[in-house]
């Protein structure tokens, strides 16, 4: 069963939540996954913390620093994820992170362990397309891991079509120029023109909009232009300094998903 395809076929207005593994506490990963899904998250993106996360804004950088200080690393994460499918049997789960830790772990071994614990796909923003096609695609396919690619307002149509051909999951529409948390969102009109330009391309993959979406209004607006949206930094902010992170995650998601 392809959990990603199934989710997009059976639901609308999908909420994909990103959280950093090992944040706020080392062993929050699985309890958070379970709480998010119970509250209504449709897809989970689990961040693998990295010391130098170039595509991330201050909130996710901060959570990565805390997670690393808590002792998170790939062996610890895969050990925790052995409990993933007991906690969230149906929900698509993606691992998101930077290439260097994956390279050091070993790409093939990384894919094997990810597939073993029931991960569906990978988002590695600093893995270039040409490298992916030449060196990684085959290994990803061997373990049935779907690669998710990012698109920005600057991405050319030709390149979008190439990414669309390569993708078997969804396309990640970065909402505007900026890192996660969304520092310099363009004005609403420009942004909507961009979303509509992409929608008009009639791509074969569904699209999720991410970066800078922080609340229900932002989520609803994104859902007007795509199959759903991704929320990361705002969720992580909601987990800061709370006694019960899973409970905080649950109420955050309910706030987004309420009718």
């Amino acid at each position: 069963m392809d959990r990603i395809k199934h989710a997009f076929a059976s639901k609308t207005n999908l909420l994909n939540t990103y959280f950093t593994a090992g944040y706020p506490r080392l062993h929050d990963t699985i309890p958070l996954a379970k709480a998010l899904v119970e509250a209504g998250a449709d897809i989970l993106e689990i961040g693998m913390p990295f010391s130098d996360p170039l595509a991330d804004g201050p909130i996710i950088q901060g959570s990565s620093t805390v997670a690393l200080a808590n002792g998170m690393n790939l062996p610890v994460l895969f050990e925790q994820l052995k409990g993933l499918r007991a906690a969230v049997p149906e929900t698509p789960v993606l691992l998101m992170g930077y290439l260097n830790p994956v390279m050091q772990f070993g790409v093939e071994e990384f894919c094997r362990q990810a597939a073993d614990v029931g991960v569906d796909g990978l988002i590695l923003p600093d893995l270039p397309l040409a490298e992916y096609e030449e060196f990684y695609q085959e290994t990803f396919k061997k373990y049935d891991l779907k690669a998710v690619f990012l698109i920005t307002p600057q991405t050319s149509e030709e390149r979008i079509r190439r990414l669309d051909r390569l993708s078997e999951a969804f396309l990640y529409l970065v909402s505007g120029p900026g890192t996660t948390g969304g520092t310099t969102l363009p004005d609403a009109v420009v942004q909507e023109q961009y979303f509509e330009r992409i929608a008009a391309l009639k791509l074969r993959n569904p699209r999720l909009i991410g970066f800078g979406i922080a609340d229900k209004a932002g989520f609803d607006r994104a859902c007007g232009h795509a199959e759903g949206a991704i929320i990361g930094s705002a969720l992580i902010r909601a987990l800061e300094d709370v006694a019960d992170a899973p409970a905080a995650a649950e109420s955050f998601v309910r706030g987004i998903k309420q009718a």
Partner: protein
Amino acid sequence: MTPTTSYQQPTARGYYGQFGGAFVPEMLYPNVEELRTQYLAIMADPAFQAELQALLRDYVGRPTPLFEAKRLSAKYNTRIFLKREDLCHTGAHKINNTVGQILLAQRLGKTRIIAETGAGQHGVATATVCALMGLPCVVYMGAIDMERQAPNVARMRLLGAEVRRAESGSQTLKDATNEAIRDWIANPVDTHYIIGSVVGPHPYPDLVARLQSVISEEMRKQLLEKTGSELPDFVVACVGGGSNAAGAFYHFLDEPEVRLIAVEAAGHGIHSGHSAATSVLGTPGIIHGSKTLLMQDEHGQITEPYSLSAGLDYPGIGPLHAYLGEVGRSEFIAITDDEALTAVAELSRLEGIIPALETAHALAALGQLGAGPDDVVVVNLSGRGDKDLETYLKNMDKLV
């Protein structure tokens, strides 16, 4: 023997052997691609070259002298020449790169400049050319480096640049580079990122190496005049990211009889846990969009290097240097803080030249070359010591 392949050129995708490439997130792809597809054509344009050469001559002060250091030579019993990059405008080789890149930025239609800086020399060199061209300039600098290189912070501000404090991670050069890259992600259309060394995604390592190659181009002519041969026996340069070394090595890369010595910062000692000796402590990985040797833990987290010198504590080296070291074309030597300080005092007293702390690492390697009385050694004197006076004053006990 004529070499069949050149060490100078990376492949079309920016590889030197296994090192290099452009590992950038999609948000940076258009920026880097624009640069990649245009930099060679722009640099080959005679109008660009004419403007660059005029600025190098009249503004930077090139050619810089090649000075025969007789008292230093006597001490090491060999023939030592100093390539005086410290006499460049702003006091270091860094401006060779920034004048070239600002002309490139103008031709790309960019209206805003960003840069990272460690010692502040690249930041000052960038702020300087931005003032010259009337372009707004933002320089990212680690919070710790802002403390230890305070005079350069003041210089950048006087030149009209905005200096932004990088507070993340180790609060030094690597974090300033992260912040500059994030700024470029947020400002993809109007901004050019003037990177300060032969690091980062392709085409930066090649672009910066080409702009710094004027150093070895001049060396060859000057050596011919002074020694009767264009080729020395040794070229010695310090390596942070590796731009002054790349420039000093460039036109000797394909002359196998010239030994190329890259000098790294060993901090308190290579294996002390406080070091920046990447060629020894580093393993292949990805930093700032480039596959190269870098200092990292077993889980691929980039570790925080240490050197007393703010311009050498970068956890990686440029991919060209990783490659040259791997294939044996260059040799690495690591120099501790204390050895570098001793070399500062030595050059000051013997030749009346106070070198930058980074440069002093190259000088400190002189005793380890095994150079004989008939050998010609060129040390690339990458910068002058004014910016380091406070550090020197604090370490006066080691300098007298």
